[in-house]
């Protein structure tokens, strides 16, 4: 079952095909069509329309205090502009852009993973609070995110769409263009792995002693 609240959160400023929140009267799909012509005004309005949802996706994946957040948002917007000619108007444009943003955010997280781990180990050695750029110190979501990074690309994408973006199994199946049962299977496998790893960790991710 889709969460209406999560849909609203990640489909800002408006649902697909409806008017944008700025009241300009342009729907995002129409703006996407205009932006494909490289018209500067249309590109700007389109990006301004999708930027909040892209930012939320990046925040959900990277954490709101991640130092790379702004860079990642910009990268996502550029990736979306580059991928716009490939949009076939088959699904909602916001789902399309969110998926691009999700992949770019996962890639950015993986790139920053080594640096984050080094910072974390330094902080532990110096008995300092977490300086790895995460505000999720309690509970320790960095551990959960690190384990998600260990999953395969499709499983990580599925589990992040489910847990962070709050998409239902059916929505994930539609966005990733695979059968619902495949999505269920990916989610189950990912969660099983997550459970095994979390149970095997000495660190309590919940932040309890």
């Amino acid at each position, binding site marked *: 079952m889709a969460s209406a*609240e999560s849909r609203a959160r990640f489909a800002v400023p408006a649902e697909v095909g409806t008017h944008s929140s700025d009241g300009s009267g342009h729907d995002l799909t129409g703006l996407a069509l205009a932006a494909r012509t490289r018209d500067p005004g249309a590109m700007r309005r389109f*990006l301004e329309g999708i930027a*909040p949802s892209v930012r939320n996706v990046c925040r959900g994946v990277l954490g709101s205090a991640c130092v790379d957040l702004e860079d990642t948002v910009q990268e996502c917007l550029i990736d979306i502009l580059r991928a716009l000619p490939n949009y076939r108007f088959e699904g909602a444009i916001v789902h399309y852009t969110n998926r691009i943003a999700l992949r770019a955010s996962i890639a950015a997280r993986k790139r920053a993973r080594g640096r984050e781990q080094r910072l974390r180990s330094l902080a532990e050695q110096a008995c300092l609070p977490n300086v790895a750029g995460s505000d999720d110190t309690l509970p320790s979501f960095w551990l959960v995110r690190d384990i998600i990074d260990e999953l395969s690309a499709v499983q990580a994408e599925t589990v992040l769409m489910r847990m*962070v973006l709050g998409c239902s199994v059916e929505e994930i199946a539609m966005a990733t263009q695979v059968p619902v049962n495949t999505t269920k299977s990916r989610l189950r496998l990912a969660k099983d792995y997550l459970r095994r790893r979390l149970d095997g960790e000495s660190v309590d991710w919940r932040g309890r002693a």
Partner: protein
Amino acid sequence: MNVEVHPEEALDRALRGELSGMEQQALDQHLAACSACEAHLALARSAKEACAPQPWGSRLDSLAVDHALAKFGRVRWPAWFFLPGQKRWLLVTAGILLAAGGVASATWWQRQSPAREPALSQATAARPAARTPARPRRAVALSEPQSALQAELTDERPSLPRAPRAQPSAALLFEQASALRDRNRVDEAIAVFRKLQQLFPKTRESRISFAVAGRMLLDRGRPAQALAQFNQHLANGGEASQEALAGRATALGQMGRLSAERETWQRLLDSYPGTVYASQARERLSQMRRRPQEAAPGVENSR
């Protein structure tokens, strides 16, 4: 609730706060055993909080859009283009010099390849033949007329079209053999020359190689093999005919074939009166006329 089955619908409803008491109890029971679903709930709630609207959100979005549009519109030049001015000009100059060097070397190579033949002929001529005559066997008649040989020597290029594809490989083999000969590895050089003759029989390098290899074989005391090489050179209208004729006469003398030797020396003198081998030819001819018995070589040198 089974640990292996993750209650996705119940998790969604729990996030929305729609669970009844019984359902909440069942979910808590599952969460106590399944840390993955517990993490799911916690992460979803955390994301919900992180995505709450912020007062500076629109400003940040606007800035991100500005930067993205600026980066997207930028033409992607190669990285070297963004080097400081001096370094960039250095690279451009180096590129121009490289290109000019390539053109110059190509031109030089084209001019150099036909000019190698006279040098080779001179190098061959610088080694006069002086071997003891050998046992007589049979006479070998030259097939090429002298006028044709002269014509080849004076103007060879129009009548000798190059093989366009085989030329580089033939040239390479010729260079290899010459290098081996310079290092006094004569047998290996002869082997490479024979390979060249086998692979590229129609090339100029191959024709010249008959004369050079014949000379080397003669120096190694193999007059029969040398004779075959000289004959090949003369039959193909070689450019080093004087050297080939002198070498052929010497080889014949070493093999004891005096009449053929005499004929060849005479032919050399008739064809090239001013040749460097003229004095050697006259001396040998007069020696053969004075003492024909002494002029006959030993048997042991013929191979």
